[in-house]
């Protein structure tokens, strides 16, 4: 749950906070997809099964 909240905070930072201007200002769909893919990968990381010791 903590990982999910951290990842959500990162996602909000990238997509909604003023930091979004860093990539949104490029008006490039390619950059936008890359950012999206990063968020998506973070989502996968947040719910991946924990490794057993």
């Amino acid at each position, binding site marked *: *749950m903590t990982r*999910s*909240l951290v*990842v*959500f905070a990162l*996602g*909000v930072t990238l*997509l*909604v906070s003023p930091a*979004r201007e860093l990539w*949104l200002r490029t*008006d490039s*769909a390619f950059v*936008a*997809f890359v950012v*999206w*893919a990063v*968020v*998506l*990968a*973070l*989502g*996968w990381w*947040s*719910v991946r099964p924990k490794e057993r010791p």
Partner: protein
Amino acid sequence: MTLLLAIVCWLLLLFGVAQLGQTSGRFRQLSKHPLVYSLSLGVYATSWTYFGAVGFARTSGLDFLAVSLGPTLAALLVPVVSLPLLEVLRRHRLATLADLLAFRYRSKAVGAVVTFTLMLAIIPYLAVQVRGVGSTASVLLDGLDPVLSGAAFCVAMVLFASLFGASHATSRERHPGLVLAVAMETLFKLVALLVVGVTAVTTAKAPLVVPPLPQTQGFVSVTLLSVVAAFLLPRQFHMAFAEAPEGEPGRRALLTSTWAFPLVLLLLNLPIPLILAAGTQLSPEGNADLYVLTVAAQVPLLPTLAWLGGVSASSAMVIVGTLALSNMVATHWVTPLRSAPKDLYRQLVLERRFVIAASLGLAFVLFVVLERVSPAAVSRGGALAQVGLVAFAGVAQTLPATLGVFFFPKLSRAGVIAGLVVGTAAWLLSLALPLVGVSLVHLPEVDGLGVAVWCSLGLNVAAAALGSWSSPVSREESLAAEACRREVVDDDASLPVDQGGFVERLAPVLGQASAALEVAKARSALALRETDTSVTAMKRLKRQLEADLSALVGPMVSWAALNVTPREEFARGVPLAERIRSLEEAVAHARQGQTQTAAETLRAWLEAVFRALPVGVCVLGPDDDVVWWNERLATLTGVASAQVRGRLRTTLEADLAQALAASGEHRVGALTVRVTRTSAADGLEGASIVVVEDLSQTRQLEAQVRHQDRLATIGRFAAGVAHEVGNPLAAVMMLTQGIERDHDASPERLSQLYDAARRIDEIVRGLVSFARAGSIQTTTARQPVSLDAIATQAASLVQLSKNRAVTLELSSADATTDANTQELVQVVVNLLTNAVDATPNDERVRVHTSFDQHHVTLDVIDEGAGMAPEVAAHVFEPFFTTKDVGQGTGLGLSVAWTIVQAHGGTLTVKSAPGAGTTMTLQLPRSA
């Protein structure tokens, strides 16, 4: 022709996959696969995403991505929000957002208002889907009326949703066929769009350059709105929660959707810039919402595939959207208004199907209106996105109420209703009405949508806060809010007495048969016995029923039917016993501070019952002070409660006061006094509970019964007596005639005459003695009497009537018992009569007497057929007889038992089939 063939094939595929999902175990299993679940969440991407995203990109730049980035952010919250929400929904069997909010705020009105808001938001969205299909079909087939193709689409969708979405009466059932069909449609539209994207690249006559995108206008607003929509859109809510697999597979599916669902959206959006670039090259001034078809037209047959992809996107939304609406409308609008139908389950299915048809009918009407106001053909694009975003904003009005479920326990039902009404009105005025050309509110050019959304939500929240302040949360709401946050909340103040009580409570809503069926189902699910009425079992059963019925008739109707307070039950004429038991349960199990009313009512009832008891009852404290003294006791003793308090010994007659002070049973005149000492285990250490009964009437009635029995016995003896008297009488007549004829009154003849007359006298005396000359023996004059004498007298009487020898084995002449002779004769006559009747003529009936230090005993032994244990167990019950009709009253042994009891003795039976019967009479020996 190709188009017609394609649409037929597509429909066959859709219906075929759905049918396989419903009937095939393997496909049903497939529907639970996490990836299939994630694909089914692709219902989010409608014709707006499929056709409209290109137009949206053209008019609003990268805003088109915001619509999909919102669900991506929402997906990151699956472990935090969706999993706990799924748990709450599963626990209480809630299927829709309206169910959840109605449950949390314990209000049918909340359910109805939420349904209304969502319906207002979704109907235009449905209309846009119909428009997407109709307008694109007219592009493929010149001259085809969009209204006609739209109508055909609506009919097919009503048919599909009714068959595969509304096939169950309850919304608690998953629809594997529907899940597979929607997943298949997502896959279909994804493949189709990717193929069109590839086509855009491969068929371009010049290098593809994405045209400069306009600056985003409301990126943040659209993203956040999409986050909310990803959770609260009825179709999304339905696929994510109502259709999630049960148990661990459901949890795994949700977790997988964290990345798989955004991946589907990402893949769906990848071709959009390419299609926009290619479409701009091919038709710079064309409608960008139709660029998918424009680009596909470069390759033969591809337009049909591309169009079917769009149809897939629309149909999935239409099917799931109308299904979710039908569940809400049937549960929150229809069920609370109608009375219990004859066949509840059929009625619910019909209602849901009707709502599906009605919703699509409304959407179709709006589609026709939209075609008249702004025909799709003349638009430059972006219209689909516009309607979609307006729908999102409408759905977002339920956000404050939904957040209140988990985070704001102080939000009350009044606040929620106020917020929803105000927010929906603001949304309607600012965003919805302009869709049909009515603009009453002027919105800014830049991010007008965002301004309208934030303003309407602000008003919504303000009204909710004001409403909650003016009308705080009720106890029921608090409990429900608690139930949404943690697992169990027991409000067991209203448990019925037994499981039948649940049927009675549910019958007015479900009908008697359906109520009984639901209770039986719940009992079976919990593996409870029908007779189990323990508080734990009743609590579990109530919880199970509430959850089951929540899916059937909605959480509020279910809750209201099952949670009847004792006061309401009084008003509804619930039987007294059930009321009292309910009150006792309430007092025994409710929390401190919640029981005053129930306890007070219970105390009043108990006092009323105590006062009205037909026997005298009093409770004495350790020092013999009177605690309770009821009215019947005042009547029996002639001393009122107020007089006796503190003066027990001085106000009562000495022997009665003495009897009250001693333990055990005592006779005081006609009164029987029973005194029970209580112990610490009873919570009344040192107190005495005294029951005083006036048994004089009972004794008189018993005497009457005994007398009747004697008369009946004499009646049965009549023939035998006549015969016995007839013989000596004939002798008297013959001797008299001889004396007269011979003038010879010799001493010998006179002696014979005397003997015959004495024999008659014996018989008559015996009968008179037995019957007491017809009088009713009401007093019991007891005197020492030998059982041998009793046995001899009874045997002679029986021999009169039955003409059967009775073997007497008498050995208790030296021992007596204090008894009423005639009553004991009656006992033995009854025993002997039965023994003789049960014994064949050649078998013996014996009477055996004996005695020991304390008892005298008489056995009546026959060698007849004997009795089975189940017969022997009932022989002393009144009116129980194994004789033919008219041969016995069934009172003989009952009367005998009563007499023996009154003499302080016992009467027992020992018998076995084929082994004869022994009736043993044992009485206390005289001192």
